[in-house]
C-alpha cells in the first residue's frame, strides 16, 4: 500500500528537542496538572511529596539500623538508600510513562500537539519528586554524619545517565503498549525482577565475586548497576566512578535513548489509529 503522507502538516516539526522547546509552556502546565491532580483534595497536599519518601526511606533506615544490622558494610542504611533511590526513581518513571499514550487517548485523538510532550511531562514530574527524595537522603546523610565531599557532585551526572535510560525505555514501552496493552502489566513484573537484579541490598563487588565473568558483564548491562555503584563510591567512599561499571551504563543509556527516540518518532504518526 502506497504511503504518501509526508506533507501532512501538524504542529510537530519532527525534531523532538525543537518540539519540546516550542511547547515548553504546555509542558510546564502538564507538570503542574500532574501535581495539582495528585494532591488536590488532600489536607496535607504537597507535603506528601516529602512525607512519602520520608516514610518509605525512613522505614528502611530504622529496620536496618535497629532490627537487621549489618556490620560488614559501613553505614548500611545509607548504602541501602543509595540503591533504593535510583531504583525507585526508575520504577516511578517507567510505570506511568508506559501508559501515558494509552491513558491520554482523548488528547491524542482530539488535539494536535507534539506527542513527545506526554512522556516527557511524566518523567519531568517524577524528576521533581526525585528532588524530594534527595532532600530526605540529605537529612539521613546528616543524621549518619557522612562527611561532605566534592565527590558528591557525581550525583548530577549519575542521574543524567539514568534519565537518558528512563527516557529511552519509556518511549519504547509507551509505543509498544499502544499495540499490546499487556505491556502495562508486564512492566510491573519486569520491575520486580529487575529490583533483585540491581545492586540494592548488596554491592557490585559481591556480584563480581559470585558471578562468572560473562554473567557479570551481562549484569553490568543494566545501567542502574553503574549508577548505583557510582553513587555509593562518590557519597560513601569519596572515590571517582569505576569505569568498569559506569562505562557499560553510559553506553547502554545512550543506546536506549537513541533507540527510544527513533522508535517513538517513527511510530508516533500511526499511534492514533491504534487507540
Amino acid at each position, binding site marked *: 500500500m502506497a504511503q504518501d*503522507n509526508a506533507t*501532512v502538516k501538524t504542529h510537530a516539526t519532527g525534531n523532538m528537542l525543537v518540539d519540546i522547546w516550542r511547547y515548553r509552556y504546555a509542558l510546564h502546565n502538564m507538570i*503542574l*496538572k500532574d501535581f*495539582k491532580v495528585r494532591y488536590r483534595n488532600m489536607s496535607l497536599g504537597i507535603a506528601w511529596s516529602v512525607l512519602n519518601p520520608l516514610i518509605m526511606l525512613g522505614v528502611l533506615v530504622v529496620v536496618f539500623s535497629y532490627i537487621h544490622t549489618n556490620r560488614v558494610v559501613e553505614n548500611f542504611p545509607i548504602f541501602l538508600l543509595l540503591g533504593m533511590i535510583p531504583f525507585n526513581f526508575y520504577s516511578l518513571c517507567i510505570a506511568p510513562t508506559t501508559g501515558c499514550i494509552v491513558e491520554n487517548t482523548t488528547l491524542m485523538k482530539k488535539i494536535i500537539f507534539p506527542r513527545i510532550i506526554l512522556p516527557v511531562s511524566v518523567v519531568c514530574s517524577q524528576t521533581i519528586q526525585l528532588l524530594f527524595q534527595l532532600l530526605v537522603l540529605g537529612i539521613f546523610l546528616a543524621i549518619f554524619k557522612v562527611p561532605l565531599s566534592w565527590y558528591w557532585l557525581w550525583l548530577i551526572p549519575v542521574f543524567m545517565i539514568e534519565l537518558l535510560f528512563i527516557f529511552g525505555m519509556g518511549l519504547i514501552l509507551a509505543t509498544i503498549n499502544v499495540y499490546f496493552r499487556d505491556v502495562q502489566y508486564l512492566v510491573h513484573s519486569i520491575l520486580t525482577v529487575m529490583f533483585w537484579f540491581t545492586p540494592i541490598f548488596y554491592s557490585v563487588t559481591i556480584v563480581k565475586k559470585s558471578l562468572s565473568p560473562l554473567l557479570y558483564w551481562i549484569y553490568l548491562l543494566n545501567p542502574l548497576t553503574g549508577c548505583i555503584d557510582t553513587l555509593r563510591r562518590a557519597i560513601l567512599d569519596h572515590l571517582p566512578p569505576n569505569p568498569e561499571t559506569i562505562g557499560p551504563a553510559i553506553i547502554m543509556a545512550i543506546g536506549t535513548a537513541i533507540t527510544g527516540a527513533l522508535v517513538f518518532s517513527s511510530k508516533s504518526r500511526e499511534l492514533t489509529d491504534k487507540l
Partner: protein
Amino acid sequence: MNSTTHTEPPIIRFRSVGKRYILQKQRPFLLHETFHRLFSRRQRRDDEFWAVRDIDITIARGESLGLVGGNGAGKSTMMSLTAGTISPTLGQVTVTGRISGLLELGAGFHPDLTGRENIYLNASLLGLCREEVEAQYKSIVDFSELHNFIDVPIRNYSSGMHVRLGFAVATHIDPDILLMDEVLAVGDQNFQQKCITRILKFRDDGKTILFVSHNADAVKRLCQRVIWLEKGRIKMQGPAEEVLAAYTSGMPK
C-alpha cells in the same frame, strides 16, 4: 511573492485521499499469533473499512466549507485528516497555515482542574506561549461568561458550561483555519447565537472554516460551499443552497 500567479494556492488540499481502518475483531492477545501473522505468507483477513475514499478537494483561503452527511459518512475523519491527528492511507493532505488544533470542544479538559487551570493547560497544548495565553485569558472568560465558576473544578460544570469554555478557548487561539465539529449541539439559544456570531466574525476576518453540523440551517448561514459525504465518498458538492436542498430533500420530514 510570485506576481504571475493570480490565484492564491489553496490553504487545504486533499489529493485522492483515502483512510483505511482495519477492523480487528479481536486484538492479538497472544504474541505468537502476531508472530504467526508476521511470518506466515497467508495473511489472515481482517475486515477493511474505508472511512473516506477518493477525496479530492481544495479549499481556498478565506473559504468556509460545510460538511454534511449521515453518521459514519466520514465527516469527522475528514476533520482529523485536516488537523493531522491521523495520516491518510492513500493520497496526500496538504495544509498551509495554523490550524485550530482542537477537534472536539473541551477535549483535554481535566475534571479535577478548575476552569482557569484548564484554560491555561488547553491553550498551551494548542500551541500558545505564556504571554499569548495571559493576553487572551480575560477575553476567553468574558466570552464563556463563566466568571463565577472559573475557580471551580470542571467536574462540577454542566455540559453546557463545559462546551462554552471549550468554544471560548478554541476560538481564541487565532488560527488561520478553524475546525468546528458539531459545536452547536450543546449550549442554549443565546450561546448558540453568540457562537454563530463569533464564527461569522472569523469568516469576515478572512479565516478558513471547516464546519460539520447536522443543523442544515446553521450550515446555510455559515458556509458558502458544502460537501455532502456518503459512505466516505463525496456525493455532491457545490453552493450551500443547492447541496443542502438536495441533502434535506432526501430526509424524512
